[in-house]
């Protein structure tokens, strides 16, 4: 116990400040937002990560978000073990044909309103794998995508930036977000 305390106290706090926000920074990282429905989630986002056929490099960097340098939970982002507990799906990889049905069913199992975030170049566009006998290409070929975070793999900082952007309340995009968000909202409101 003393060894653990000594190590923990000796290490101190290594957590760094969050990334700077703003449209320019998003543009620099190539992050594309289709809609802002952040206020629906009350500044907290429960994410189910779906590996739809990635090489796992994206997973390594997504894992890094939980390390003490980035500590993503302080921003209200946490990872959950089932799509039924999730506000958002964070999907990586070109969607392999083997994972196509699984991804569609995961999307159906996620309660509305929901976000789909494509993480990594493969998820955004199909990447170097494209469409083939084994691959459906990008995630949007299978389920609708709201946020795209490119990179091979995206750095933890780019991922953090994209997630925080997805959680921003609707501002200039409020009008655009209305129609696309309303069917989901209607389902939710009917409960």
């Amino acid at each position, binding site marked *: 116990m003393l*060894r*653990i305390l*000594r*190590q*923990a106290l000796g*290490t101190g706090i*290594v957590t760094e400040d969050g990334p700077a926000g703003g449209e320019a920074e998003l543009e620099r990282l190539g992050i594309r937002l289709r809609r802002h429905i952040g206020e629906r989630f009350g500044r907290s986002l429960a994410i189910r990560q779906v*590996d739809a*056929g*990635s*090489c*796992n*490099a994206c997973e*390594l*960097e997504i*894992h*890094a978000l*939980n*390390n*003490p*340098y980035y500590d993503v939970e302080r921003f209200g982002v946490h990872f959950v073990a089932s799509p039924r507990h999730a506000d958002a799906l964070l999907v990586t*990889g070109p969607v*392999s044909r*083997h*994972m196509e049905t699984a991804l569609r069913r995961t999307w159906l199992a996620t309660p509305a309103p929901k976000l789909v975030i494509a993480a990594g170049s493969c998820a955004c566009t199909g990447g170097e794998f494209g469409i083939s006998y084994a691959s459906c290409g990008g995630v949007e070929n299978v389920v609708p995508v709201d946020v795209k975070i490119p990179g*091979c*793999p995206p*750095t933890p900082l780019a991922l953090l930036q994209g997630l925080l952007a997805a959680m921003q309340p609707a501002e200039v995009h409020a009008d655009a977000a209305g129609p696309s968000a309303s069917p989901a909202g209607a389902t939710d409101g009917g409960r």
Partner: protein
Amino acid sequence: MRRALMCERERIANHLGDIGAICNDVAFTFAHVQCARLRESWQRRSGTLFGHRVMMDAIIPGGVGRDLRPEAAAMLRQDHAALRRAMEPLFDVIEDHPSLDDRLLGTGRLDATDAVALGCTGYVAKASGQGYDVRRDNPYPPYDVLSVEGAVETGGDVAARVGVRIAEMRGSLALLDQLLDALPDGAIHTPLPAPAPHAMGLGLVEGWRGEVLSFVRFAADGRIARFFPRDPSWFTGPAMERLILGNIVPDFPGCNKSVNGSYSGQDR
């Protein structure tokens, strides 16, 4: 030499992540957070000096993607010393902690005959008494001129697979310093000759999970006709089915993480 430098860095990064994650799976989050911290600073250095945090496009056919800056060797040497200092007190705790012993010792046992019969390599085989290591037993440059200390344990359980990783991290750190001492100057890349029609090639290396095999066959026009990479997970996947038998469900995550098979390698 530069390729080996990257491969040993990768081995250390992934073993660090795994050791922490196995501890996390039995609710010992202290080790997980500490290992994740060390891994992150290690990966940041890889990003700065080798151009990519997970070394993508750093090793290319014919050589390496880019050379190290002149001051890199000194920075890396400092890193190695710093990691050695930081990891040993952690390993002291991990190797001697009652709640970890309770969950890891005797859990997920793979006996030596199964490890051999299934063709396992890497830390899974090494933890079950099979010390085969491509770097030492079928050496390729630069390991043919280095002394690779193999890691081997006989417990065959999750604790043994943690022990092998710890030993391999110590071994890789020693290799990294040897590699820096012997780092040659000169070209970092040789242009590849055009392949003969229907030429075939086979490569075998000791990746961080174990023996990685790559096969390539060219078509008549010099284009690649077939490429097949074989990850050690092809063999440790079936071993996973064997080693979880008789274990309680809450021990599954630790068993799984101690094997850490690649899903992208063969599962989808």
